[in-house]
């Protein structure tokens, strides 16, 4: 099958169209949405095995020769991300059954999620910079729908900010691609990588590198450009928030990692230094936010920003340990953020508030929820057997190898802040005097809690079985370190 690597993009796309035909039949919508995601999962696993055995998969659409058509490339990094976003989407859809409500479900909620997954998977798989822009728009358009769906006052207000920021950053993306195109004269990413080394104009390329950092930094929320994220993400309902928190910023992070390892490797002392400084500032900003709030949503949202900083710090080191750590941490963060948002969704559903000071004593009535949350919190902070540990360890090791002592110390210190911020939720919500709560019906509670529990279980397995995952991660890091493999897979022997 030459087209195998397109299936994780085409399947959700196809089923989203089918779901558009009968928006009011909620049961059929649910079943088909799960079926679509299940088949996408099977396709991604098949593709993962294929990439592992046969190396990088590349295809140029329309049977055109490589730099002239749109190339789609699936290397280890992209297929791992495609797989984990599909997993998250499955759990979010499952969680939505008992939390999103009939009104939203009958207004194109599931098609919205499937279209968004199309965009996310496409952005991870594409090998063409303008096509990446198009897939960014696909996922952003669907996220506009998901953020405003329901039409509550706060959603309307925040969606205006969200759309405004993203339209500006998209326009900037087009301008940046235009600059790049005028310099190198090609849009195929492998071909751009070759041309950049040939034309020998380091000055303008560095400018374009910084512009790309600006564009993807706006999407991925790095230091001075994260201002829109906290309030926008707090607006939509919990399953949408889980989907956004787990996936959307990661697409920006992936794009930075891809462009900074494939294109802009000439003037690393400037571009990667800048990336490193910004990522450390991102961590600091995120830490301040995570400690400042008593709102559970806001605390986890600022933890997204910290994670973006940690991953990008790893990506800026450009050695094998740090890049491998970044991939490890990226996937860990997708899983654990999804799980944490779902868990605090359960807490909010039980207590009816997102204010920590109004909670307390939940451990008596919901012990299982408490301990699951504790494990997820330890996983996020990176306590050894759990999922956050290996990634952060490798990133710090890479940081020391590259002799960025202070940066690595910042990462270590940030782990403590992360732990403190999520433990505050545990202490306030689960310990102390029990407050008056109206208990959820058993069925409703189970519908909310089971997907979150299984997702935490997966993240624990991810941490415990990391030894077993190392070959995959090192493949992913290798492609980033040696772009020649990528170029060869797309352009052939050239």
């Amino acid at each position, binding site marked *: *099958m*030459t*087209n195998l690597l*397109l299936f994780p993009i*085409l399947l959700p*796309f*196809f089923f989203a*169209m*089918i779901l*558009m*035909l009968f*928006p009011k039949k909620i049961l059929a919508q649910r079943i088909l949405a799960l079926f679509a995601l299940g088949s996408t999962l099977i396709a991604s696993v098949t593709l993962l095995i294929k990439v592992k055995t046969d190396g990088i998969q590349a*295809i*140029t*659409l*329309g*049977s055109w020769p490589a730099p002239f058509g749109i190339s*789609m490339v699936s290397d280890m990094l992209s297929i791992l991300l495609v797989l984990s976003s599909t997993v998250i989407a499955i759990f979010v859809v499952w969680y939505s059954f008992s939390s999103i409500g009939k009104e939203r479900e009958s207004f194109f909620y599931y098609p919205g999620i499937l279209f968004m997954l199309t965009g996310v998977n496409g952005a991870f798989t594409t090998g063409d910079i303008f096509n990446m822009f198009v897939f960014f728009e696909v996922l952003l358009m669907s996220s506009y729908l998901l953020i405003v769906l329901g039409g509550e006052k706060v959603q309307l207000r925040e969606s205006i900010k969200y759309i405004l920021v993203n339209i500006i950053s998209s326009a900037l993306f087009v301008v940046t691609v235009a600059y790049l195109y005028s310099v190198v004269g090609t849009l195929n990413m492998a071909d751009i990588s070759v041309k950049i080394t040939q034309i020998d104009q380091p000055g303008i390329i560095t400018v374009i590198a910084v512009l790309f950092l600006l564009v993807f930094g706006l999407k991925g929320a790095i230091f001075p450009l994260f201002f829109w994220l906290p309030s926008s993400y707090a607006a939509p309902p919990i399953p949408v928030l889980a989907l956004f928190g787990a996936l959307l910023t990661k697409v920006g992070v992936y794009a930075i990692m891809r462009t900074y390892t494939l294109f802009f490797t000439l003037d690393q002392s400037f571009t990667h230094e800048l990336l490193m400084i910004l990522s450390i500032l991102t961590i600091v900003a995120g830490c301040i936010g995570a400690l400042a709030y008593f709102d559970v949503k806001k605390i986890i949202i600022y933890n997204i920003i910290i994670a973006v900083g940690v991953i990008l710090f790893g990506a800026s080191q450009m050695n094998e340990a740090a890049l491998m750590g970044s991939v490890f941490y990226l996937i860990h963060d997708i899983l654990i953020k999804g799980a944490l948002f779902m868990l605090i969704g359960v807490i909010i559903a039980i207590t009816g508030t997102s204010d920590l000071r109004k909670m307390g004593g939940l451990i008596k009535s919901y012990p299982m929820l408490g301990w699951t949350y504790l494990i997820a919190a330890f996983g996020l902070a990176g306590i050894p057997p759990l999922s956050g540990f290996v990634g952060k360890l490798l990133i710090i090791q890479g940081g020391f190898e590259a002799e960025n002592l202070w940066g690595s110390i910042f990462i270590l210190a940030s782990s403590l802040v992360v732990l403190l911020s999520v433990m505050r939720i545990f202490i306030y919500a689960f310990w102390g005097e029990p407050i008056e709560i109206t208990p959820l019906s058993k069925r409703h509670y189970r519908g909310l809690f089971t997907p979150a529990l299984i997702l935490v279980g997966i993240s624990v397995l991810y941490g415990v079985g990391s030894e077993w995952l190392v070959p995959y991660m090192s493949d992913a890091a290798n492609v980033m370190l040696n772009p020649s493999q990528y170029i060869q897979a797309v352009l052939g022997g050239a």
Partner: protein
Amino acid sequence: MKTNDVILQTTTNLVFFIIILFSIHIFFAGHYAPGGGFVGGLLTASGIVLLLLAYDIKTVTTALPINYTVMTAIGLLIALGTAAGSIIFDVPFFTHAFDYFDLPLLGKQSLHTAMLFDTGVYLVVVGVTMTIIQSIGDDD
């Protein structure tokens, strides 16, 4: 208050068909001349908008009983289906095929699967434009 707009309505009845014919012409011209699915779709939609201006929404939905959301979905399905045909033949996605045929009346013409893709685009453009205009117009 309803003014007498018999001139507008009579002109519309005539002009509507000219616009539709022109949009079909533009749509089929796409491969060799400026035009294609997008402009063709917009022109068709503008024809329907002219109907909406001359009459009211109810009259137009009775005359053209189309669910434009379904139309959009079908257009997307046609476009994807055309591109996905290549999966059956195990060639890269989006590979098109064409051949020459002797058609009655028109003579020797080339038929290209890109036409089918353009049909999908056409339906999506008409569907989306009309969905936007109708849902804004319907709001009271």
